[in-house]
């Protein structure tokens, strides 16, 4: 009975169809791989957004410093790969390094509460970016650390690092398309598991009232650090995969503040602290970004490139969401649903009366 009900539900079939379409994208080859790259980025950003949501949504610790993990993941992969470590092996290492770094600054910073934590993370993010920009020059002057340089380069300063391009780039890209898809499902699985389990319950308790959580026996600092490390691990892996996909990284792109902003915006737009919210947020973010960056507004007398508008749109969206619908798109959906149901029930009652 129940199985039959599930099989008949249109939602299941819609899900299966969407999934089949996503799996088949590389074979369809629509618009010369454009859709595939878009899909790759969407999956990557869903992973990032889900990872941020574990700390920012479940535990309520707003971090503006997640780009540090992304950048560290990317840099770990590049540095190790250029020194001859097999590139797939660098992925878990990148996650580990990011996670360790999360522990390093999370341990002191997570003792701060609410807004102070947010400010401190902006500081950490900017400091890390500047450190990576100048690391080479710093090491050059130090006789002890000189051994880390290879041909005088570790992080490459502002020029960044480059990975060698493989021969069959199409197959390579397709491989990564599926790889990141698996990664996304793994991230969602972890997120679901955290949310269902005792760990997630502890995080939600911290979010609601940290003092009360401590009183009932939640080890709040440890929980927060674990959440940060878990989140950092996922972001680090995403960074590593990004580096392997585009072959080129520099501190401004992977450590830049816009990266951190993106990770804050996506879950909030979609619906903070939920499982599906970050997915929606990331899809909206990537698709809107893709459309806006290539669009031109023709007003007859002036041609306006909309690329400058792209963060403006998100800023506006953020303000509107916080003012009117703190639960994001999901909250809006729920409200709409309630309204529709009310409308239906209302009409049924009137129909009954007649």
């Amino acid at each position, binding site marked *: 009975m129940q199985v039959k009900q599930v099989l008949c539900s249109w939602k299941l079939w819609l899900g299966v169809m969407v999934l089949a379409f996503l799996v088949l994208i590389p074979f369809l080859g629509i618009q010369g791989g454009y859709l595939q790259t878009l899909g790759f980025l969407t999956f990557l950003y869903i992973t990032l957004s889900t990872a941020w949501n574990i700390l920012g949504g479940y535990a309520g610790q707003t971090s503006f410093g997640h780009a540090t993990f992304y950048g560290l993941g990317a840099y770990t992969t590049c540095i190790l790969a250029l020194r001859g470590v097999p590139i797939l092996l660098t992925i878990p290492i990148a996650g580990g390094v990011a996670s360790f770094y999360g522990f390093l600054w999370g341990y002191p910073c997570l003792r701060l509460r609410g*807004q102070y934590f947010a400010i401190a993370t902006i*500081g950490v993010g900017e400091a890390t970016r500047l450190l990576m*920009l100048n690391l080479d020059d710093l090491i050059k002057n130090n006789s002890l650390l000189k051994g880390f340089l290879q041909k005088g380069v570790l992080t490459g300063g502002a020029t960044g690092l480059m990975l060698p391009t493989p021969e069959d780039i199409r197959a390579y890209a397709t491989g990564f398309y599926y790889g990141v898809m698996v990664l996304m499902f793994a991230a969602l699985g972890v997120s679901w598991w955290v949310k269902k389990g005792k760990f997630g319950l502890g995080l939600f308790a911290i979010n609601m009232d940290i003092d009360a959580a401590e009183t009932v026996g939640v080890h709040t600092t440890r929980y927060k650090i674990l959440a940060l490390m878990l989140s950092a691990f996922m972001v680090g892996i995403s960074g590593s995969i990004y580096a392997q996909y585009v072959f080129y990284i520099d501190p401004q792109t992977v450590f830049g503040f816009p990266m951190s902003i993106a990770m804050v915006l996506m879950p909030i737009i979609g619906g903070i602290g939920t499982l599906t919210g970050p997915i929606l947020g990331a899809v909206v973010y990537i698709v809107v970004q893709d459309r806006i960056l290539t669009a031109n507004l023709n007003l007859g007398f002036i041609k306006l490139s909309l690329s400058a508008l792209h963060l403006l749109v998100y800023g506006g969206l953020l303000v509107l969401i916080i003012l009117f619908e703190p639960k994001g798109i999901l909250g809006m959906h729920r409200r709409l649903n309630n309204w529709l149901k009310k409308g239906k029930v209302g009409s049924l009652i009137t129909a009954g009366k007649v």
Partner: protein
Amino acid sequence: MSYGLTLIYGVMKIVNLAHAGVMMWGAYFAFVLITRLGGNPFLAPIVIVPVFFVFGMFLQRYIVRRVMGAPPISSLLLLFGVWLIMQNISYLIFSGDTKAITTKYTLLTFQLAGIPVSVNRMVVFIVGILALLALRQFLGHTYMGKAIRATAQDSDASKLAGINTSRITEIAFGIGIALASLAGSLMALIFAFDPDFGRSHLLKGFCIVVLGGLESMIGVALGALVLALAEALSVLWLMPAMQDFVSFALLVIVLIVMPGGMKGLVDRFFSK
């Protein structure tokens, strides 16, 4: 800049991320006034400050007040959104190029005890000091100033004492924003700027505020001194590019190690 932050934080317990945006707008406003309309660079703040005071009050009345009762993180995110909007409006209007204001005063210097001093920097310094003195006088000796301080100490109690706290909050927010724009327009005379200009200054402003203790005015001046010293020393010992790194690292360390700022440290030291 830091004084504006302290004022807003003290009164509203809100960390204002939009400050960076206001500062950047102040700089661009000065840029337009001076280079396009041919205004005198030192008189530009007279126009800018009232405009931003009104802007700040507007912001508080129609936007920020809606989240006053909500958890502090939502107001932080809200103002962050406002900042993003402001930043990108200027990208749209002025493009991302770095701008600088050059006037006939820019290269002018005079001799002070044998050392050449830039007229520009001197005037900026004096205006800054004057603004601080005026603020101190205002907060200490007028009814409005006292009401602002009372609201900062205990909002509910001052409401009971007959203070229109929502009005006072609006005015304090306006003053805070106006101070940020003043800082922006003054800095525009000295430094080059682009739409991203406020961010590092915002962080430094926070660093100063936290160093000085979050609600004390003298502490803020002390904090500014310490930060300036730390930056100068980092140029000497490390390398010039690491100057900002030092101030951000200092911010994080201070936030963690001494949340009461230097005042808290001194208090702790004496109580032992």
